């Protein structure tokens, strides 16, 4: 295998492990994957002319715009026992595909992936969230943390977003 393939497999494995943490409600361990100065960001989508969509973080509204404390707060809320939108917990499954290492210099890497998240609730309510992520990893081998996550959801109109990506 080429180094490039090995590198991809390495990050792919991290994403599989991450998906397992989310699906198994191991959210405290999930938080540990993120650097202390992480920015976890998901822009709102818009139907505009080709090439006119702005996905950058600016004054534009977004779906997620959390730092590490924001993510901790989301987990704490779920753990409060009173987060009704996820109590009893939904059945959630994360699928991560199309992993591509866009750049890697040993200490920093940018990795793109696609995802599908399935959520089942209230007996018959089944929802899919589809999109792509672009992660900035930092720290290098043995110490990789997600320093920035861009989540581009491919929905113009979202269902109640009670899952993490």
């Amino acid at each position, binding site marked *: 295998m080429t180094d490039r393939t090995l590198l991809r497999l390495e990050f792919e494995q991290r994403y599989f492990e991450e998906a397992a943490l989310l699906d198994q409600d191991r959210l405290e361990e999930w938080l540990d994957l993120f650097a202390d100065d992480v920015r976890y960001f998901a822009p709102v989508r818009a139907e505009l002319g080709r090439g*006119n969509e702005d996905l950058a973080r600016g004054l534009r509204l977004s779906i997620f715009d959390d730092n590490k404390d924001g993510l901790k707060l989301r987990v704490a809320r779920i753990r409060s026992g*009173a987060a009704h939108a*996820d109590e009893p917990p939904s059945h959630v499954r994360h699928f991560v595909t199309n992993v591509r290492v866009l750049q890697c210099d040993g200490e920093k890497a940018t990795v793109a992936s696609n995802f599908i998240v399935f959520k089942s609730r209230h007996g018959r309510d089944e929802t899919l969230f589809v999109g792509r992520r672009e992660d900035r990893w930092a720290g290098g081998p043995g110490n990789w943390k997600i320093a920035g996550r861009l989540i581009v959801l491919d929905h*113009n109109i979202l269902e109640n977003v009670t899952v993490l990506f």
Partner: protein
Amino acid sequence: MGTTSDPATLIDLADRTVSPKIFADPEIYRAEQERIFGRCWLYVAHDSQVPNPGDFVTSFMGEEPVIVCRDLDGRVHVFLNSCRHRGMQVCRFEQGNARSFQCPYHGWTYDMTGRLVGVPDFRKAYYEELDRSKWGLLEVPRSAAYRGLIFASFEERAPSLEDYLGGFRWYLDMVLDRSASGMMTLPGVHKWTLATNWKFGAEQFSGDNYHTMWAHQSAVRVGLAEQFGGAEPWQRDFESATDEGHGWINLTFDDPPELNEVLGPYLARLREEAAKRLSPMQVRQIGCVHVGTVFPNFSLLSFLGFLSIRAWHPRGPDRVDVWSWSLVQRDAPQAVLELARDVQVRTFSPAGIFEQDDGEMWTACYQTLRGTYRRRFPLNYQMSANHGRTDPERPGLLHPPPTEIGIFGFYRRWRQAMADDGARG
């Protein structure tokens, strides 16, 4: 409508109860489209979204797609987004700037005043016999703006927007007219969808402070919410049900100290500016939490000095699309704009800490109310039924929260609108 869905039997004014049928019955939903969404003033856009000639945004009035645009002379129009030829949408983008709208199906082209200015094969196939002056875009008969909020009505004989808002303008002014700079929307629209009836959200914003400690208990437990209000009952902690069926919640609120550095000077300046434009009673309320609904489907939410507005777009008895924007003072400093963005994103947005809970409540309520047996038994809106008071300084019937006078005012208005069969003398 048949007698079983007679609005008079669905909303019991004496007992202050509401039949579950109004949420789940497809026949009632269809009647609502005609009698409420076909006649009331509906929010379509904010004027800051179309600042320049040629600017447009697409929006909805009930289930009907519309275009809100500014023509080249600067006048705002609201058109049905539907070609006169086959009905195709002539504008397929959320927003932009254009000189004309060209239908993608057969190329009929309309200018920004709605005139049909281009018809392919006009000579060869229509023999120049088509009277283009009769086939312009359908313009929504009435449109008007109040302090930047653009509303439109399909009802030619609707009262003026000012009369329709009536006493509620006093409350709207409190959040929309605080300074000479006026307001603008931040870029981006939060859009989400819920498997529930549109009225659950609209009624909650019209006067349900009762749910906060329960539905949002998780936010309470992590220290993000508390029992807001209560410090100054009647004066700064009150709800109002105006005669026109609009509802307002007003709650005292202590700004989080960590935000004082940014918010303190900003709110102080706003109060100063507002004192030049608003009554002392209105200025006193700045800094409070405000929540309100303009009947039928426009709501707002303001706290920490910020303003979030939203429309509840009906999509069948069992589906609502929510569109929400952040409104800010045009001259607010960058740090305040960023805070406004953060506040909306983290609290009341599709993944917001609070919004998730509400979506869950409204969805699950709808599921039970579909039941044939459940529908026989009404819902209770009796809280503080006969304890409202009036006040010369503030419009509407008032009561400190929690109360259901505002919500029941919404349903009293609903009943009135649904009972009107539209027959004109």
